[in-house]
Every structure is written in C-alpha cells, then in structure tokens.
C-alpha cells in the first residue's frame, strides 16, 4: 500500500485518537502545572464621622475578567504535585525524620490520601490478578472435562459476571452482602455474630472488593484458557500418559507449560485493568475504607467545586503508574516484532 493511500485510510481514526486521547493527555499535563486564580480582593476605606474602617471584599468583576483572560489559572510549577493531596513531600519528610519504627512510618503514610489510594490500588492489583488466574484456570480445566452439551450452558453463565457493567455488578453484590441481604445474613449466621457488617471494617471491605474483583475478571481468564486447552497437543498428552504420568503430573508438565504464554497475556491485561479499579468503590460505597487513584480523580472532578488542577496532577501520576506497568508488554511486543522481521 502506498503511503498516500495509507494516509487517507488511516486519517479518520488517527484524527479521533489525536484529538481525544493525545491532546487530552497534553492538556492534563499542562493543567496540572496551573492552579486556580485567587479571588481579586478589593480593599475599600470607609471614612465616617467615627473614624475610618477598611473593608475587604471580593471584586467579582475583576476575578471573572482574570478567569476569562487566563482560563488555566496561575502557573504553579510542580507545587500541586508536591502538596498534601498528592505526593505530600513535606509530610513524608516530617514522618521520616520523626519516625520511631519503619512500621510507624508506613502507618503515617497511609493517612495521606495519595499514598492511601496507592496502597489500596497496588494491593488490589497484585492480590486479584493471581487469584483470578488460578480460578480461571481451574474453571477452564473443569469445564473442558464436562460433557459437550453442558459446556455451552456453563460458558453462558460464566460470561455474565464479566459482561455486566462493573458498577451494576458491584451494586448487585453490594445489596446481597447488606446486613439485611441474603449473603449478609448468611455470613452473620455462619460467624454467629448478628451485628457483623461487611461494610463496617476496613479489612472486610477490602476483602469484599477483592472478591468482587476476582468474580468479575475470572471469566476472562477462563475463556482465554479454555480456548488454549482446545489446542492442547494430544500426542504430548498421550505420551505423558504412556509414561505413567498421573493426572496432576499431566496438568503440571503438559497443560500448564502449553498455556504459559496465555497466562502472561492474561496477567498483563489484568494488571493494567485492575490498576484502574474504580467502579466497585462507587458501587460498594466503600470510599471511607478504600480509595483508588481513579476514584480520587473522579472525586476531584465531581461535585460543585471541580478541582481540575488537583485531578490533573493525580491523572499524570496515574498515567506514570500505568506506563510502569505497561513497560513489560511493550518490551515483549518489541521483541516479537523484531523476531518476525
């Protein structure tokens, strides 16, 4: 294909991505360097018969004019990144110099919003991803040994948790684990504690969110592994059997090595997707116990006062996080590409 034809074919999609993905990223970076204008203050001296008083009021007109002239706000450099809501450099330094033990230092870090969110996001990502891979693999092996007619039905129901909107899925589970809902009552009955509520404690909320995460993403791993099992080399399996490999050994030495590339694929995709965990926190109403980076951005943007600059700074930090997680994928694609040519 000639360069020129390629250009015209590719132009519409390139424009869409340029205008609505590339530019917004630049716009976010710029926005994060500015902070909103301070209101212009007007000091008026009123002199009356009893002496003079000075009154300070906001000059609405001048403030509006300033906003109109420079909608981005004042240039603030990196100060937003370093303030308490983000990297909190001063607070961290104070904690470090005043630390009594390393544990105490980390406990202090957890009180700062950005590090608290980071802590949850990373824990969530690195707990949920391995668990969903294991569960997905187990389901795939189980379903593969089922009777042909049952398979379709099982796959249908297995797809549901993944296909359903994350917010809706988490709401459905949220209502069930309510202390008056069916799962909530069941858990109270099992724990023999009529006052137990999964929403009340931080640890239980975290566990709930992670269970939801596994429930939501295991079908993806299942479907991918199930497809992989269909291409399992039968000869290798048979020779393993002839050599007297037990069922477990067959799985361990034939099936798992065959599926290994798929495991890497699922792990990489899920690491990226779990890193942006957001809807379950809204759905489970869990922001008091767990916040994630995406949730902080959402919270800054919503509401009456849209904290654009603060949201932009968190966005940039999130993008950096994604970039770090993405780098192994990029390296791998690069190697694949070089191997091909």
């Amino acid at each position: 294909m000639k360069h020129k034809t390629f250009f015209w074919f590719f132009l519409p999609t390139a424009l869409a991505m340029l205008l609505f993905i590339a530019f917004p990223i630049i716009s976010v970076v710029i926005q994060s360097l500015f902070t909103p204008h301070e209101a212009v203050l007007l000091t008026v001296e009123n002199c009356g018969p009893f002496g003079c008083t000075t009154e300070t009021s906001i000059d609405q007109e001048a403030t509006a004019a300033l906003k109109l002239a420079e909608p981005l706000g004042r240039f603030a450099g990196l100060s937003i990144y370093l303030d308490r809501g983000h990297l909190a450099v001063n607070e961290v330094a104070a904690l470090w110099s005043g630390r009594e033990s390393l544990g105490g230092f980390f406990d202090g870090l957890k009180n700062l919003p950005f590090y608290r969110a980071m802590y949850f996001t990373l824990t969530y990502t690195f707990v949920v991803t391995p668990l969903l891979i294991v569960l997905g693999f187990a389901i795939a092996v189980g379903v593969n040994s089922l009777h042909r007619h049952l398979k379709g039905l099982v796959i249908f129901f297995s797809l549901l948790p993944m296909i359903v909107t994350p917010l809706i899925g988490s709401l459905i589970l949220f209502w069930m684990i309510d202390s008056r809902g069916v799962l909530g009552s069941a858990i109270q009955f099992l724990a023999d504690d009529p006052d137990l509520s999964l929403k009340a404690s931080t640890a239980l909320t975290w566990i709930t969110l992670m269970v939801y995460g596994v429930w939501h993403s295991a079908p993806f791993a299942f479907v991918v592994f199930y497809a992989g099992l269909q291409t399992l080399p039968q000869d290798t399996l048979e020779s393993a059997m002839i050599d007297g490999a037990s069922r477990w050994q067959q799985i361990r030495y034939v099936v798992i090595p065959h599926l290994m590339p798929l495991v890497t694929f699922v792990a990489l995709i899920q690491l990226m997707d779990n890193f942006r965990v957001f809807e379950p926190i809204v759905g489970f109403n869990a922001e008091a116990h767990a916040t994630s980076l995406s949730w902080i951005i959402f919270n800054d943007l919503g509401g009456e006062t849209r904290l654009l600059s603060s949201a932009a700074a968190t966005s940039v930090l999130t993008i950096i996080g994604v970039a770090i997680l993405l780098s192994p994928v990029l390296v791998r694609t690069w190697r694949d590409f070089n191997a091909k040519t």
Partner: protein
Amino acid sequence: MSSKATQQPLSLRIAIYAFIGIWLMMAAFPFLWTLWGSFKVELDFFSITNWKDALFGPRTEATYGSSLTGAGYEGAWIQEEFWRAVLNTFIVCFFVVCTSLTIGTLGGYALSRSGFKYTFWLLIIALIFRAMPPITLVSGYLLPFFEWNLWGILPTSIIVLVAINQPFTLWMLHSFFQKIPKELDESAKVDGCTQFQAFRHVIIPVMWPGVITTGLFSFLLAYNDFAVTAMLLSKENQTMVPKIASFLGTTQTEGNVMFAVAAVVSATVPLFILVMFFQRQIVSGLTAGAVKG
C-alpha cells in the same frame, strides 16, 4: 477422546461437578436473586427478620395483594424517568458502534495491508492509548469542553467514546484483516481497481464476521462506560449507568432503594440477551488477541 485411559474415576468426576456447580452458583445466583427480588417491596428484599421473605414476599403480599409487584419498575421508569436514560443509552451505543466501526475498519484495513515499519509504531501507540484509564483523560476534556460549550450533550460523549474505543477496535480489526488473504485485494488491483475499490468490492463482502465481533465489544464499552458519561453528560442527558449511580444518592434517603434495584435489573436484561445470542462471537473475540499473541 473418551477412551478408557482418559476415563475419570468417580471421585474426581464428582469433585469436578461440585466445583463447576459452585462456580455456576457464584456466577448466576446474584443475578437470579436480584431479578426475583426486584418484584418485591424493600422490606422483603432487605429483610431484617428472615431471609426467606425475599423469596415469598409476605409484606409484598400484604401491601399489593400478590407476592410479586411491579412497583419498583413503575417508580424507576415512570416516576424517575428511567426511560429517558434508556433511550439516551441506546442512542449513544448506536452511534458509537456505527462510527467506530466505520473509521476503525478503514484504519485497521490500512494497518494490515501496509508493510512499512510505521504501522508497528502506530499499533504500539494504540496499545499505550488502550492502557490509559479513561478517567485520566476526562480531566483533560472538562476545561476545553466548558470553554467551547460542548459539555453535557450526547454528541460530545459519543465522539469521546468513539475515540476511546479506537485503539481496541484497531487491534482487533487489524488481526481479523490479516486473516483475510492479501491475494484477494491484490488480484483486484491487478484488474485495475484502486485500493479503495478493492476494499469496497472485495474486502467488505467478506469482512462481516470480524466486524460484528468487534462491534459487540464497542457496544459493550459504550454501554458499560461510567467514567466518561458520568462526567461529560448533564443531568437531563444521562445514560443508564450514571443515572443508576445518581439514584443511589437520592433514593437511599427516601427509602426507594427498590427503584434502583429495578433499574439495575432493567439495565442487565439487554446484556443477558446479547450474551445469549452472541456467545460464540464474544468468546472468539476474547481469544482472538490472546491465542495469536
């Protein structure tokens, strides 16, 4: 391959059935439970005294004379005007799917037919864009959209969702087009077609399976989106998911949780139907990228 050697012992077989049974319960039970419960009153669905109330609905019967009631649906669809959100959702989904498939097929086709090195870099850039959480982009949109008065209307969200959709669409269609032999359009070009005519008369008739699968995923992305639509649409133009989220704020206090439950069930039904009819395409789409890479 059910020879004697692969026959499972009974105990193993029972264990497998039990495991799959438990998984099916986990996967399907919440939906069935909520579907059934959405026809009850709140005191039955969230029963303090006895969990069986949600099954048999004694208080629903006391209030409405039968153990099932559509009161939640009536409240959500008519009183809270959920139908408006449903309509908006389908407008958004329809235009997102059509637009992103149109420009995506052109782009994906070009990527699969051009052998130059820049196609690789374009795909890599698309991959990076795919990894961006949409909410981080939203904070970049807000200020310009406010400035240019584009905030709050459906077309803006549609075009934003199309753009967010593009990287994934490109990757998927690229791999589908690579499976269509190059000789097809090359022979058309030898016969004197331009590249576009070759695409129009030779490729379009054979590309539908891949395009339908990709379209399904575009639909799901638009339908399931919360971050973009919640931030970029004004209250009157809200789609289903943000509308449900806003229900939670208002109805929990008024004791109308059942409105939200009914709305949630209404929003799940189309997805149910979709999976029922397109199960094969969804499975093949999920695995297309995986088995290859």
